[in-house]
């Protein structure tokens, strides 16, 4: 056996909270081989990100980290001086941060932020620019020469995430740490990105640490998998073993919770004479770029319309137009009869992080929503109904894990009775077990209250679970609509077909076969 690239023994991290230590990671041991790939899975708050940051030795003030040893590429990370630490970060590791929207500096173009990393590697300006364009291309960003000049807020969520990946790869690291790198991506791009990472890993010879709550995804990439629960590594072994013969109860839970792609879909809702929502010939431009191109669709009462499409296809934009948050050409008509629903459309935003006011507690947010939407519940009840424990109520968004934030965002939309809820990837940040629960919840809520959803997602399994009908969006155009079974089972449009294929292949193999590049 060769010397491992990463060798961790007895890693323990405590956060200092009001003068008391709270353990986040408890004596964790693992290795990563020089070109190896380790996957870490675990529920929200189990310490995954903390481990990732420990490897970069970048923990917030107040964190105390200790380990018997923590070696990366022959470097004893915990003993580095300031300068050495800087060099270590610059040359040995790449880091893909969990929340791309916040990992990018809002005041600078995305291109300059990636080029900066190349400059750090010693490239000259022109070379760095060229390398940036190439890297954008590599991670599947459209039209790089134009995109590099955009600011983060002008990109779609998936595009932002890809920029962050490109930025991490630019460092040409020995160890690439990916902390939930694909949460915002559709299944096809997700697969592509993972394949890309896998390919680059082999080509350039770096090791990866992939963190995700998406077990199939991790399994498709990693050789070994570690399962974390409450800061402890409860299972650690070959990927295949973990997925096929999970030992620990929690691992089993994770495996079982993966939504099957061929589960029975919900029957189509018999169409009313008058749809709840009708969108006619909506066109939206950002500058000269078309984000929506002549989109028309209907949603019936009590119907869930799944909206799928690759990243940047205009899903969020359509949602915003329907909600009245963005102006566009065309007509959006909502026929509500329920006079009580003062606020007819609710929105669960793609990035819950930004959609919660950082200075208001969960309780304040929920209470206000209940008030505004004339709900008949109270914050406690609302929190419980979305699987939030009541003690989060007095926390501020920054004190919540990603999953919790998303649940707050969902809870908020259901604070009252709005006939239409637009869910923009509401489960993308959730770990599978929670995701399943939330989906159950959303279905239950929908059935109980009879609202309609426009359900935006890139996860076809999720669509199958929740949607009655599905619409496929590509480059701002609806390329296919129909029942879930029709579109997913027998896609007519080649683009739909490729989406379905990608999803299947990613899930089909539970070992680390990488579907898209399998031929290679």
């Amino acid at each position, binding site marked *: 056996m060769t010397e491992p690239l990463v060798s961790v023994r007895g890693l323990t991290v405590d956060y200092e909270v*009001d003068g008391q230590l709270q353990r986040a990671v408890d004596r964790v041991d693992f290795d990563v081989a020089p070109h190896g790939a380790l996957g870490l899975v675990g529920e929200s708050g189990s310490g995954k990100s903390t481990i990732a940051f420990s490897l970069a030795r970048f923990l917030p003030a107040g*964190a*105390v*980290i200790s380990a018997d040893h923590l070696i990366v590429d022959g470097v004893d990370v915990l003993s580095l001086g300031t300068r050495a630490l800087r060099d270590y970060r610059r040359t040995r590791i790449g880091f893909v941060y969990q929340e791309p929207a916040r990992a990018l500096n809002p005041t600078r173009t995305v291109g300059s932020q990636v080029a900066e990393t190349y400059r750090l590697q010693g490239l000259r300006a022109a070379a760095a620019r060229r390398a940036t364009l190439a890297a954008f291309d590599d991670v599947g960003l459209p039209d790089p020469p134009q995109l590099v000049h955009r600011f983060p807020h002008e990109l779609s969520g998936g595009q932002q995430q890809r920029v962050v990946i490109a930025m991490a790869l630019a460092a040409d690291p020995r160890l690439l740490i990916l902390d939930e790198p694909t949460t915002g991506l559709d299944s096809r791009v997700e697969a592509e990105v993972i394949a890309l990472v896998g390919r680059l890993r082999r080509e350039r010879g770096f090791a990866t640490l992939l963190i995700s709550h998406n077990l199939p995804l991790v399994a498709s990439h990693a050789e070994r998998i570690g399962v974390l629960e409450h800061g402890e590594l409860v299972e650690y072994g070959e990927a295949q073993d973990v997925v096929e013969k999970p030992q620990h109860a929690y691992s089993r839970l994770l495996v079982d919770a993966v939504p099957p792609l061929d589960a029975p879909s919900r029957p189509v809702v018999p169409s009313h004479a008058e749809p709840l929502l009708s969108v006619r010939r909506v066109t939206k431009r950002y500058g000269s770029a078309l984000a929506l191109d002549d989109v028309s669709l209907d949603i019936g009462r009590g119907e869930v319309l799944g909206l799928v499409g690759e990243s940047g296809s205009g899903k969020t934009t359509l949602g915003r137009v329907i909600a009245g948050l963005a102006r566009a050409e065309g007509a959006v008509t909502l026929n509500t009869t329920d006079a009580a629903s003062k606020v007819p459309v609710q929105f669960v*935003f793609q990035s819950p992080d930004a959609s919660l*006011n*950082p*200075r208001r507690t969960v309780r304040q947010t929920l209470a206000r929503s209940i008030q505004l*939407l004339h709900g008949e519940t109270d914050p406690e009840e609302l929190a419980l109904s979305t699987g939030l424990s009541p003690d989060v109520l007095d926390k501020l968004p920054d004190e919540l894990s990603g999953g919790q934030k998303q649940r707050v965002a969902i809870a908020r939309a259901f604070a009252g009775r709005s006939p239409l809820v637009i869910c923009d990837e509401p489960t993308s940040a959730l770990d599978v077990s929670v995701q399943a629960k939330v989906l159950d919840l959303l279905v239950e809520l929908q059935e109980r209250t009879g609202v309609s959803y426009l359900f935006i997602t890139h996860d076809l399994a999720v669509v199958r679970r929740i949607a009655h009908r599905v619409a496929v969006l590509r480059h701002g155009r609806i390329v296919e609509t129909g029942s879930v079974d029709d579109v997913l089972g027998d896609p007519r449009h080649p683009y739909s077909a490729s989406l379905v294929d990608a999803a299947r292949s990613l899930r089909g193999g539970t070992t680390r076969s990488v579907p898209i590049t399998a031929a290679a």
Partner: protein
Amino acid sequence: MTVTAALPDAEIAELLVSPRTRSSRLRRWRVLVARPSFTISAVIVLFWVFAAVGWRLLGLDPFADTGQRLSAPSAAHWFGTDRIGRDVFARVLAGAEPALLVGPFGAALATALGSTLGLIAGYRRGWVDQLFMRGFDIFLTLPTLIFLLVIVGAFGGSPLTIIIAVGILFAPGIARIVRAAVLVEMGKQYVPSARIQGESAARLIFRELLPNVWPQVLVQATLSIAGAIFISSSLSFLGLASAPPSPDWGLAVNENRTYLQAAWWTLAFPTLAIASLVVSLNLIADNFREVFRR
């Protein structure tokens, strides 16, 4: 091996309160009170508040001639005496009254006015913004002095007048800063999130946006206190208004500045009084920020 991460000073670690805690407010208060810079500052501010309210009860006479002109600090006159023989200690304590009237209230008025207008301008943008901003521009362009002269000329130099003058004078600047901060906040998702729930503009402005621009507002508020205390002194520097024999700190600074070389105590103690108040308020604000971060 144990490494404390990214921590310049062990002391801070102890004082820093991390997010994601279950800690109660009470606990944070305890941390706050344990910090010397907070406690001392609080004591100083309280001291001045008591002085402002209760100096008469102490039997001090800030107006009488003690018979000794410009005598240096001594046991009889702790802070010495001034050019017409008044006890500087008595004057400094009594001066807390006008200072605490004009400073905090003037600053509060300016901050309330400025941040409200700034919030509205930044939130509404478009023509409302243009209208407000050009309105502020008028105030920023109009010489301060004319403004003060008109106000003081028309209404005299009473504390109330000065408070109003400070309020009107400082508001446009604060408004601009708040507006700039709001313009940035408007780019964040929580604004449409609230709007889509049918949140009213007023609540959006004051409940959603205001807490997020609060740090800037707070800085402006604490800083305008000193400015407010000085309005009267600057006015009297330019020979425009004065209210002798008021022991007002600002006025004292101007009245005695010509004795800087000859009788430093007449100038130093009122200045120290102002500084102690302003510094304390700022330190209190700092500590709050650090302990109740987020």
